[in-house]
């Protein structure tokens, strides 16, 4: 038998029992599809987490007030009220500060926001114009908070897209209309572009107002909750941090840095935590991949063992009619390869389709993992071929009479 005859014989044998072939293919399709879908979804999740962390801003330093100490009892970090707008102004004007390009003092509170009959509890942030540069905010309509807005304590607001859809419905353009924040009317001057994120990380569920308006009219306080700083480049982060620490210590008249009433977090800290998160994610993914490969592999092994063992009599007959052992083995090898190839291609399409649909529904970016495809098809094909060939080889080793009598 030459190669093409062998191929024809294998294809013929596969079409003889369509149910058996369909079941074997299904086993391989499910095995490979599941692995590809799971790994692709996992990688999509990993990517989403990474990009959300990156979108928080680059070269970012965050100054937070220290923990309030009341009668010797230390409270939560950030609970104190030691940072002011003047601290921020000093950082941006001091000649000693050379490594900082933008300073953004922020006062952030949750507040009830209403428009007509709709209302929403959302994050209200008092900002100055440099916020947009520090936090990578871009506008989809109108303008961001301006210096004039801040200087004259205007009651204007910039809305995140989530707030727009909560209060005005999807796709509405409410620029020029007004909303009420804690019962005070604010004119909407702009809408930001969506940055994504969910839950506590949702950067779209937010309302920006001028910092002075937030301090004096909305919340009646004279401090800020954080000061965000953009360093001139990633290389001068440490320098920038030292300059700011020095300036704030002297402004707050503190001699020992250990007693500082503020803390500085850099993006490097956040990225460090993020890489721990993504590391855990990768480990989780490897676990999922290993389990799905194992489950898929066992499924393929079972179906191949059963379908080929069932054909021991046929192998005996073929040998009695003059088939050599290597011809029989070659035929079953070809059958296993055809099955795993066809099953692999269908499984790949199914896996990609599944991860496309699921990532659409849970709003993750769609990624197709090339390494998952190689891994899934490689392992499954290996298992399919080994366990298709093993019983065929065993049957071909029997004398034709023993194989023919096999029940």
């Amino acid at each position, binding site marked *: *038998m*030459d190669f093409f*005859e062998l191929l024809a*014989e294998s294809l*013929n044998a596969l079409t*003889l*029992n369509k149910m058996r072939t369909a079941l074997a293919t299904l086993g391989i399709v499910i095995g490979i599809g599941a692995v590809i879908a799971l790994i692709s979804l996992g990688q999509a999740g990993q990517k989403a987490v990474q990009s959300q962390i990156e979108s928080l801003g680059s070269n970012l330093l965050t100054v937070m007030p220290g923990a309030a100490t009341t009668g010797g009892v230390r409270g939560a970090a950030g609970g104190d009220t030691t940072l002011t707008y003047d601290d921020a102004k000093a950082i941006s004007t001091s000649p000693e500060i050379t490594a900082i390009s933008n300073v953004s003092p922020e006062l952030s509170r949750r507040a009830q926001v209403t428009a007509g009959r709709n209302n929403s509890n959302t994050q209200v942030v008092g900002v100055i114009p440099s916020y947009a540069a520090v936090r990578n905010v871009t506008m989809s309509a109108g303008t961001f908070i301006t210096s004039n807005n801040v200087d004259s304590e205007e009651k204007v607001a910039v809305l995140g897209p989530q707030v727009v859809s909560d209060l005005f419905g999807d796709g509405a353009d409410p620029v020029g209309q007004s909303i009420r924040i804690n019962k005070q009317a604010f004119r909407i001057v702009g809408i930001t572009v969506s940055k994504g994120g969910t839950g506590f990380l949702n950067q779209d569920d937010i309302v920006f107002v001028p910092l002075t308006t937030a301090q004096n009219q909305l919340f009646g306080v004279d401090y800020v909750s954080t000061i965000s700083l953009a360093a001139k480049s990633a290389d001068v982060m440490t320098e920038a941090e030292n300059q700011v620490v020095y300036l704030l210590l002297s402004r707050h008249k503190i001699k020992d840095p250990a007693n500082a009433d503020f803390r500085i977090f850099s993006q490097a800290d956040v990225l460090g935590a993020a890489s721990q998160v993504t590391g855990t994610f990768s480990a989780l993914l490897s676990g999922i991949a290993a389990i799905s490969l194992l489950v898929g592999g066992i499924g393929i092994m079972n179906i191949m063992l059963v379908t080929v063992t069932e054909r021991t*009599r*046929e192998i005996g*007959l*073929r*040998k*009695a*009619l*003059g*088939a*050599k*052992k*290597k*011809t029989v083995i070659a035929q079953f090898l070809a059958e296993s390869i055809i099955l795993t190839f066809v099953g692999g291609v269908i499984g790949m399409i199914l896996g990609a389709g599944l991860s496309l649909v699921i990532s659409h529904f849970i709003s993750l970016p769609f990624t197709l993992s090339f390494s998952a495809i190689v891994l899934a098809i490689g392992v499954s094909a290996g298992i399919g071929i080994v366990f298709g060939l093993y019983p065929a080889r065993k049957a071909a080793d029997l*004398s*034709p*009479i023993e194989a*023919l009598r096999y029940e």
Partner: protein
Amino acid sequence: MIKVTHLSKIYKMDGVQTVALSDINFEIDKGEYVAIMGPSGSGKSTLMHMLGALDTPTSGKYILDGQEVGNLSDDELAEIRNKKIGFVFQAFNLLPRTSALKNVILPLSYASYPKENREKRATELLTMVGLGDRLHHNSNQLSGGQQQRVAIARALAMDPALLLADEPTGNLATSQSEEIMTIFSDLNKKGHTIIMITHEPLIAKFAKRIITVRDGKIIKDEKNGKHLKIKV
């Protein structure tokens, strides 16, 4: 054409030795039609497996068509089965859901018989056994007798020196049995050498020579009603 000398087969299973055949000697000439008879457990099936190169003897010689078969490799035995022996089994053993034509072509494809002639050869043989109008019927669409006729056509595909039938009528009704036996008689008249294993005396009577086996030994060898001397 067939010469068997001092042929023995001993099975060893779990340390227990079972003597299936001991010291068998006989010769069969070209064109003979021989029935091998005996009750179950007599060793007649083992003898047929030896003659069919499906199994190898423990000791002794088996010469088929001038070739010593006893000590051949697995692949060489496959070639002998393909070119020199045609099998007809009790259970027909056709490939399921496969056309009569493809079943007859199967041994031709294992022999690398010229591709362009395979279908013609298979069609001729199927026509000869009276299935010219059922070439494309699948094996499960045929009656038992028709399936056995496909099996005979398949056995003849490579024009083998020996046609070996193991209880060919064991699974058939009487009328169909007669059809099959008529085909064997016709084939014998055309010069085919046939060995048939059976336990039914009525079927054995179609053969011209009857060898009776019991307890692994030949106890009777009759040709056209005359007793031949049993060689020892």
